[in-house]
């Protein structure tokens, strides 16, 4: 019984949050990695792109709520998301046309692209704060829980509850669908294949008649969609605050690099590695140990490796270890 309680505890506080957070990071890292694979620079504006997509989705959600449209137990944001994706695609394509295309034609150094993306980041940042303000926005509606802790307790008779929030369930399902669709697109369709060819060897791809403008455009569309979905899921699960989207940039980059930057599979793996280690290292194991250990061994501390304020340190340490041991990342992305 104690053993089951301990497992439930871990599931409730470690596995489910880790899985959800991992999905959100994986979607974010996929966007970063796609831009890296096609345009060959680290896009610092990605966090703000996520925030922008979420912001538009929030406005669309509010609009739908005013009209009385709802999805019943599911959050309205799910049907508002296409609007957010559309606007973010427009924003990304306009930014590419106005900013990045010039540098691409000039064949600028990747670092120049990176600095340009910092400029774009400033711009988006101001735009978002200008429109929606810097404060918290909550836009979750519908049923809050798929299963509450109390329901679980009465169902199983265990002392520990297992709460499963609707937003967590949605995050996991949506991520699975999106990732499957993305891989189908990259591996099966003509456009997807041409993108992979372009990422592998630009010159060879150009020689075979692949249109680079089209590849870049599709890359931006995919990135914008991924960013909006990742941002909205993150916003639904936690809450929308523009500043957090700047902060989430570090774990996202860490996930992309840990998995191997430029490799989509790596981005997903990296996202889960970062998320689970963040949650596992900042988890207080006291109760877990108290279930498993005999009476006399009860710990008196919290048994927490690091306080949650240091969660950045976790993604950073993993990043450093990977850079030291295997600079190309787990899945051998583009090397140095």
């Amino acid at each position, binding site marked *: 019984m104690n053993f089951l309680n301990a497992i439930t505890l871990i599931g409730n506080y470690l596995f489910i949050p880790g899985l959800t957070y991992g999905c959100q990071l994986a979607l974010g890292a996929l966007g970063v990695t796609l831009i890296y694979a096609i345009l060959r620079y680290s896009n610092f504006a990605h966090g703000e792109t996520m925030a922008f997509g979420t912001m538009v989705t929030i406005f669309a959600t509010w609009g739908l709520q005013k009209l009385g449209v709802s999805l019943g137990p599911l959050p309205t944001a799910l049907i508002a998301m296409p609007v957010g994706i559309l606007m973010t695609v427009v924003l990304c394509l306009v930014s590419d046309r106005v900013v990045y295309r010039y540098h691409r034609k000039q064949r600028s150094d*990747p670092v120049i692209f990176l600095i340009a993306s910092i400029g774009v980041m400033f711009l988006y940042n101001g735009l978002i704060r200008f429109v929606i303000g810097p404060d918290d926005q909550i836009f979750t509606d519908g049923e809050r829980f798929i299963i509450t802790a109390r329901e679980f307790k009465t169902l199983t008779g265990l002392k520990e509850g297992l709460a499963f929030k609707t937003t967590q369930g949605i995050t996991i399902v949506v991520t699975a669908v999106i990732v499957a669709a993305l891989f189908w697109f990259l591996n099966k369709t003509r456009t997807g294949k041409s993108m992979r060819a372009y990422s592998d060897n630009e010159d060879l791809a150009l020689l075979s008649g692949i249109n680079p403008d089209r590849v870049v455009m599709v890359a931006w569309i995919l990135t914008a969609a991924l960013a909006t979905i990742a941002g909205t899921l993150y916003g639904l699960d936690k809450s929308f605050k523009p500043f957090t989207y700047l902060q989430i940039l570090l774990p996202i980059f860490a996930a992309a690099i840990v998995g191997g930057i430029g490799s989509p599979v790596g981005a997903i793996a990296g996202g889960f590695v970062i998320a689970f280690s963040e949650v596992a290292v900042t988890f207080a194991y006291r109760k877990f140990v108290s279930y498993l250990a005999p009476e006399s061994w009860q710990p008196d501390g919290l048994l927490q490796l690091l306080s949650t*304020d240091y969660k950045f340190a976790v993604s950073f340490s993993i990043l*450093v270890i990977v850079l030291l041991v295997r*600079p190309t990342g787990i899945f051998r992305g583009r090397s140095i």
Partner: protein
Amino acid sequence: MSHTLRKILMFGLVAIGFIAVGQLQSWPLSLTILNLCLISAIMSLGVNIQWGYAGLLNVGVMGFAALGGLAGVLVSTQPVPAAWAAGGSGLGLAFLVALVTIGAICWCYFKLGPVVRTLPIIIIGLVGFFAYRYFFDPAVSAIEAVDPATSGNLGGLGMPIILSWLVGGLFAAAAAWAVGKVSLGLRSDYLAIATLGISEIIIAMLKNEDWLTRGVKNMSGLPRPVPYEVDIQKSEYFIKLAEDWGVSIIDLSSILVKLAYAGLFAAVLLILLWLCERALKSPWGRMMRAIRDNETAAEAMGKNVTGRHLQVFILGSAVIGIAGAMLTTLDGQFTPASYQPLRFTFLIWVMVIVGGSGNNWGAILGGFVIWFFWVEAEPVGLWLMDVITSGMADTSPLREHLLKSAAHMRPITMGVVLLLVLRFTPRGLLPETKR
């Protein structure tokens, strides 16, 4: 237009800007902006050393500046003997354990083979971590329990705060050494992301380690290197001077204090500028340019590229640390929550790019111009919004929203400026001179 003429013209325009603010708004405000401009100029000089000389991408300026600020606190505040008595020895033991652990891990890493070393490193790391926490946790709670309302930390050394400028540079240099060792020699983006990470960690540490700097409870009332306004206002000499000049003693005292700060900061800036110019003209500067422009060729000529990069990264970070300590000195307080990446990292980058990377004068000009715009963008943005919305009714929610959001014009303006400069004058306002 020759470079010298361009330089004089640009700095002349900046001077006119300060005079305009002084006349139109107020002189103390103009001097406040000037002081922060001087500090920003030093920070951007530091970034220019890294980016302009060597092409290194440091996105952790905020962290190095905050370390400088930490030095300001640790050097200048009075020690708290009770806290030292309560937890000093425990803390010392904890750090000793940490040092031994790191030493042992390094020994394993360098002395054992690539596969054999993994297990011992993990074991040593875990054991060391728990031993460290065993000493660290009780010591910290003991320290933080000492008079938590006013101190709750160990305090500093009680030395003149000017000394912290040097110490801040050393702190930042030490952090830069650690980051550089790990991420230099890899692709340039990796350094960017590693520095981004270390800066976030430094800020998280400063916010949460209450025993060090009281965390988010802030440290205020740091001692000053210049006289206090109140003392000037009491002095017979200055009261008479104010009467003779026909200004109020309050204005005069505030202007004098700010001028004193400006003098100190300008002295530091000029010394650093002189050193930087000398460095760029020397064979060392020539080598740095060679490495920046063609790493492979420089390496083929026998230059140690990674070694030089590490050196220049440490130097630049030290300059940023100095500026960070100066900022804390000027503020008279240390507030970890005020360190925002947009303001302390990315804004400095805009300064360097706009001013002219690779040119020390350009970096300084960028520091002045961008900080000036950053401060003035808000009143100008507000005024602009007021004009645009003047046709609307006073109670219109759109007008209200636009006026309230005018402050967010700042990042938009900075983004636009950066993108325009990158596109149309990628070499900046004062381009690097061909030597």
